[in-house]
């Protein structure tokens, strides 16, 4: 993966691309080139304009100004069909696949004239198997996409582009949904693609993998291209600073001896629901410690989170908080100072169309502080909301705006502030945080982590459920992996390596993992 200097014709040349959404400048005058056979990283925080830029490139959006050339030929704007024809393929972050259809259907869609009375499936299938063999991406063409693993689906998404003859492949946050092992496989695939002559644009905000797989890094910030660097010779610290625009202080861990057991989940099983189940699972979280649960989505994390904050009940086994079994009413748990940070802030964390102050009091609307004779005490509620906004430095234009207008980081800070205020003037006893920093940028992540670490230091027991191994390694005292509703032993974080954790997340026991690490 090296750049041969002085290429006459770049694979891709963007000139002066600008795009505004209302008053928001998503892309401002971006110039970028991609050499043939090069792997270019497009790095930036959420909202920096990475996705907008590649959406323009692929024709999902129409740029306000600027031009795109592919191998010297101008690309007609706003037309995905033209982008495909020019050899641009895109692996979307949210896969563009239909679960109920076969792999072959997904691949062949749109490749034939629509008036044709039949589809040339046999030829299409042969070509798919051919492509799969050439690039080492084994797949069953007739398999229904819904039955494939996440890694396999991504493979289909890549094969779709290759089948259409892509020479430039754009990968939008391709590792966001993968386990470490699956990521490794992806990186191997990427090197095969480059060997076969493709040029790649790799979008990410994970610095380590960017430095590992890319030749060159382009950093976007607030819609502008702020830096271009060869990957060799730059560092994570430099890139992080370029992304955020200031130096980021990673939160420091404040260690203290864990206190008594707060959350005690004892041999619990839950019925299989839409979001997985738990199978004879035990876990203890002590006061003052952060226990993190690592796992690929859908292995029972939601069941565990629901159980730990009173939203779900166990079919077998026992759950106690400070030695007491609480009734299966979320309100009872809240009044016992159990704080909850739900997984999806948009769907569950806030009610988007209600104002910020209404959301701020929504968990404690029934308490005398905020309601009297069935009427909301609006002044008290507003004062409370303002105290949260000030205490957590939530940036907004006022507490009367709908919560959905907040940025991801500020919305999550609102959720966190509300959760941590659960004990009133006292600290919460237990904090259950499910994917607390999902989709947030580095700055916001650091702030959320700092707040969680402070809460633990103040004596709260903290249960963090996360798919982000960096996050787990940063804040957790003990870590357990969850796989198919079963938890591995919760070992101190120092005893885990990312490889070992990845294997445990895939269901291999840590002991077996140790052998693999040794071998």
């Amino acid at each position: 993966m090296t750049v041969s200097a002085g290429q006459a014709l770049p694979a891709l040349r963007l000139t002066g691309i600008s795009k505004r959404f209302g008053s928001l400048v998503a892309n401002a005058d971006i110039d970028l080139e991609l050499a043939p056979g090069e792997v270019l990283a497009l790095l930036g925080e959420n909202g920096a304009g990475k996705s907008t830029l590649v959406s323009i490139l692929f024709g999902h959006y129409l740029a306000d100004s600027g031009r795109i050339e592919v191998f010297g030929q101008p690309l007609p704007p706003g037309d995905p069909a033209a982008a495909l024809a020019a050899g641009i393929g895109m692996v979307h972050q949210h896969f563009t696949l239909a679960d109920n259809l076969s792999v072959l259907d997904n691949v062949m869609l749109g490749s034939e004239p629509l008036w044709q009375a039949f589809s040339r499936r046999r030829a299409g299938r042969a070509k798919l198997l051919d492509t799969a063999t050439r690039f080492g991406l084994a797949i069953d063409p007739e398999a229904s996409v819904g039955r494939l693993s996440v890694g396999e689906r991504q493979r289909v998404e890549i094969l779709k582009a290759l089948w259409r003859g892509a020479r430039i492949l754009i990968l939008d946050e391709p590792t966001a949904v993968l386990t470490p092992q699956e990521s490794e496989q992806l990186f191997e695939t990427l090197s095969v693609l480059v060997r076969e002559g493709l040029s790649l644009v790799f979008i990410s905000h994970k610095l380590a993998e960017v430095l590992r797989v890319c030749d060159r890094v382009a950093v976007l910030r607030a819609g502008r291209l702020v830096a271009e660097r060869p990957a060799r010779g730059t560092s994570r610290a430099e890139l992080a600073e370029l992304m955020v625009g200031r130096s980021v202080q990673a939160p420091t861990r404040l260690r203290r001896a864990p206190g008594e057991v707060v959350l005690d989940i004892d041999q619990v099983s839950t019925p299989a629901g839409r979001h997985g189940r738990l199978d004879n699972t035990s876990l203890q979280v002590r006061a003052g410690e952060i226990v993190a649960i690592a796992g690929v989505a859908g292995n029972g994390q939601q069941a565990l989170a629901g159980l730990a904050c009173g939203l779900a009940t166990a079919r077998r086994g026992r759950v106690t908080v400070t030695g007491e079994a609480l009734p299966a009413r979320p309100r009872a748990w809240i009044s016992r100072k159990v704080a909850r940070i739900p997984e999806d802030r948009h769907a569950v964390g806030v009610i988007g169309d209600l104002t910020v102050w209404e959301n701020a009091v929504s968990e404690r609307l029934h308490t005398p502080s905020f309601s009297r004779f069935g009427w909301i005490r609006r002044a008290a509620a507003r004062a409370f909301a303002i105290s949260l906004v000030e205490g957590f430095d939530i940036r907004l234009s006022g507490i009367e705006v709908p919560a959905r207008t907040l940025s991801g980081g500020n919305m999550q800070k609102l959720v966190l502030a509300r959760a941590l205020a659960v004990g009133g003037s006292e600290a919460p006893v237990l904090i259950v945080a499910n994917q607390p920093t999902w989709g947030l940028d580095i700055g916001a992540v650091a702030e959320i982590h700092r707040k969680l670490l402070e809460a633990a230091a103040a004596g709260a027991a903290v249960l963090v459920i996360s798919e982000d191994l960096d996050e787990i390694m940063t804040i957790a005292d003990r870590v357990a992996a969850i796989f198919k509703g079963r938890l591995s032993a919760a070992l101190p974080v120092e005893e885990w390596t990312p490889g070992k954790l990845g294997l445990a997340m895939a269901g291999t026991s840590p002991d077996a993992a140790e052998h693999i690490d040794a071998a």
Partner: protein
Amino acid sequence: MSELYDIVASSAFWIAVLRIATPLIFGTLGVLLCERAGVLNLGIEGIMVAGAFTGWLAVFQGADLWTGVLVAAMVGALLGLVHASLTVWLGVSQHVSGLGLTLLAASLAAYAYRVSFPTVSSPPTIEAFAPLEALSAVPLIGPALGAQTAMTILALMLVPIVGWTLQRTPAGLAVRMAGENPAAVEAQGLSVLAVRTSAVMAGSALMGVAGAFLTLSAFNAFFFNMVNGRGWICVALVVFASWRPGKALLGALLFAAFDALQLRLQQSSGLLPVTLPYQLYLMLPYLLSIVALVVMARRAAYPQALMKPYRKGER
């Protein structure tokens, strides 16, 4: 029980089944096409009224019968375009738009009828489709087929045609994908708007034809209320059919069989020891449809993007 057997074994029963099923087959295929592309079309009830009226009017004004069918199809497609522009282009609630379209189309048809025939007391008639007696020679099902018109044969032929189109053609794949994940359609370089609009227009054309069958084949005149909820039955039959044309045919025939059976049960007094109110017999097909629907819908695989508007560039 022998009386029940006599009813079911008679060719008159099966003649009635096919005749009752025909508009349901057209209509169900129409709803199925729309929903496979991700658009619920509750305009069907009104589109059927409009198709029944315009098809009949064209023939009454001197056009031949097939032209009447074509006019009904085109009116259906046009109303489908209205629904598509509201729901597909503007992303309006598909329930609201569909129900609005039903009210609009049915009322417009009634209004146009009143304006066209301000003074008649009994509905004017036309020369309807004649039965295809040549088909009586077909073994076994000949007696039932011979009493049907060309429109019933067309409906039966459409089932495999729609099935083939959906499963085996590039256009059918695009329609199914638009109903499963419109973002995938866009990512493969096709226009979601075009695919969904075409599917809704084609489906609505079939709904118009379903209406025309009533005035051009089943009867020879246009009455108010002649569609009488058949459109809603089609919407339910699509769920019953799990969005598959072959099962849609089965569902239409099943419903028609219950309907034909209840008509005959009302007339045969000897079957039950007590006399039941006739309304109970009228309920029978609907009751059994609900039961069948509950049983079948439990494992129905909805098109994943059904009723989800797609806006380009949004996640």
